């Protein structure tokens, strides 16, 4: 079932474009053109609200205030104003994110999808990432259910990357937080550990990617 999105935008062209892009991305969108109508809507019926601020009928901030008092579904604010106070006010009123016009439609779609992605219920004792399974308590790692032997540093490295899947992690952070402090850890040492870990992971080693200028990340299996 596709997520239902409510868009409140008074500009015809921009509104049509946004609806078009959301629909292309497989999202179902309903479009309102004035703030007055938006005030009267029941926000619980939608998964996410995209709200322009300068609206006829009622100001976007008032709509935001009303909606926030009723539920806490994600609200993404569109603003043409550079005024910091308006952005801050919107965030204070509970907006989850804002976008300043002009923006690229795909940027908007990406933000919407990021907001809709439900946070995975993280279990502290078990992390699964594609074929890789990590038993945190027992400090054991499985690739396609077959256990592999890792050193302490290699385990900590994999665990650190798996905790934030698909996010680039800086070398400096890994050096500070993963390499044992008693040894004179350098980024080169880190690279050696990573290449060993990659080898041990076998076919799943391709998921451990290098990020230019930053460090490493554990990519999603779809290879994005």
């Amino acid at each position, binding site marked *: 079932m596709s997520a239902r999105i409510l868009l409140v935008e008074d500009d015809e062209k921009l509104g049509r474009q946004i609806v078009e892009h959301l629909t292309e991305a497989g999202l179902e969108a309903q479009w309102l053109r004035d703030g007055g109508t938006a005030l009267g809507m029941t926000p619980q019926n939608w998964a996410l609200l995209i709200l322009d601020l300068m609206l006829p009928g009622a100001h976007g901030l008032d709509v935001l205030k009303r909606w926030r008092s009723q539920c806490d579904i994600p609200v993404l604010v569109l603003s043409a104003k*550079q*005024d*910091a*106070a308006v*952005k*801050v006010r919107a*965030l204070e009123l509970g907006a989850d*994110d804002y*976008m*300043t016009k*002009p*923006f*690229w439609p*795909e*940027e908007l779609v*990406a*933000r919407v999808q990021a907001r809709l992605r439900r946070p995975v219920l993280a279990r502290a004792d078990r992390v699964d990432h594609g074929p890789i399974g990590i038993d945190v308590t027992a400090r054991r790692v499985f690739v396609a259910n077959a256990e592999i032997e890792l050193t302490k540093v290699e385990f900590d490295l994999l665990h650190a990357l798996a*905790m*934030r899947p698909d*996010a*680039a*992690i*800086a070398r*400096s*952070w890994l050096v500070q937080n993963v390499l044992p402090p008693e040894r004179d850890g350098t980024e080169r040492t880190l690279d050696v550990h990573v290449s060993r870990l990659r080898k041990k992971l076998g076919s799943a080693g391709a998921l451990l990617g290098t*990020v*230019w*200028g*930053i*460090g490493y990340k554990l990519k999603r299996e779809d290879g994005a």
Partner: protein
Amino acid sequence: MRLATRLGLTLLVTAVPLTLGLVIVRERASRTAELDALVDYARGRMESGGRDACEEAPEDFQDPPRRTGPGRFGPPGGRDPLGLGPGRGLDGGPVGGNGARPPRGRNPRPEPMPMPAGPVASRFELWAYNQDFRSDNPSAPLLDADLRRDLGTGAEFGSNSFTLPERSGLPMRSGFQALVRMPWAEGPCALVLARRIDLADTTADRFGRFIAPALLAGVLVLTTLFAFLPFVRRVRDLKHGVQRSAASGYAELVGARGHDELSELGQAFDAAGSAVRGQIERLEQRDRSLRAFVENTTHDVMLPLTVLQGHLSALERRASAGEPTDPVRVREAQEEAHYLGALLENLGAAARLEADEVPLALHRMSLNRLVERAVSRQTTIARGRGVELVHALPGEEVEVLADVALFERAVSNLVQNAVRYGREGGHVAVVLEIDGADFVVRVLDDGPGVADEELARLAERSYRTEAARRRHPTGTGLGLSIAKEVCERHGFRFQLKRAEVGGLEAILRGPIAPRAF
């Protein structure tokens, strides 16, 4: 109303009633004194022999006696030297002597007694009447109704003024008279009319009584006016000075002389004028720099707009001809549109930075989200240019106290510069790190980078004058200078250096906002 006119009127309005009041009070006092003197005179004369003379011959009594009757107090039927007219009894009836008393054996002539001092040379007369206001002396003047009324109510005396008509060559006379009840209260001399007949015209004298206070008031008025007129003149000079100063755009000073409140007022005007002048100069300066800035940047807005129009027109032509879309043109059009948007945002930021007095709107915000937004804004362009745009955030939230709009613009500018002017098909990395109590935002690319002397020039304060020239060819002018200035305004550190991986590395460093409890 003019100051001088108002002052004159005020003085008149106060001086005239004051003078009149003084005159009236003085007149009253002198009237009372005259009456007292007249009453005393009448009683004194009657008690020192007048009564005897009167009771001895009431039909003849008159004091001083007429000259025609020597040895007598006053000869009957004598000529009235004062033209008092023939004595008539009240009600026009005969003046009859009744109840005449025997002489008391005293000297019938009254003792000489000093005349009460009058305002002018006067003559005094006494006439006797009985309780019924009748005189035995036919020459006695008729008693006025108001005198009779006064005595009738039991008063000891009554008084009024009187006028003697012009008669037989004698001018009109006026005088003052008092009807006095004698202590014995009976007989033909129970009441005595004491008259003071002014021998000269008292009009001048009365007028004279006005003169002194009026003169005094006049002198006061004139003195005040003369003292005040220079003040009025200086106020007028001050006004002209202020008008001149205002006309010259507050360049000319009012320049008040002296060391009093007026000159202080002039100095205050000068101080206010110079404050206004300073304000005007600041505004003019800002106006000039903004205008120059807009002029410089208009060129740069027009340039990408023209390129964009060119792309769109080419695309339209190809589409009409049924040819396939040229992806390079589409991408370039996107880039120009993106550049335009960022340029306008930067213009807004520059205008805010230019107005030094506008304070930063500092708010606590998540730097993680800010970096995400700045990166996601450039993803479309990066993909178009084949640039791999990556970013890394620390595992925890980094909060910072900053002006959201300005600081986000600063970070966006760095990312945009790296994407736009790095190597096509290259890399751009944006890293947010925690270094002790500081946050560090690093933006690095593997583009051609910037020559050392260029790096030094970017740090120059005068970048903006050259911005228009430098901006488009290298693209680093406006965006980087704004990033730098935003950091300076926040007290953050801004550094540009050659990245180890090649290309340019921009580093922002500042304090992490302390955790709020």
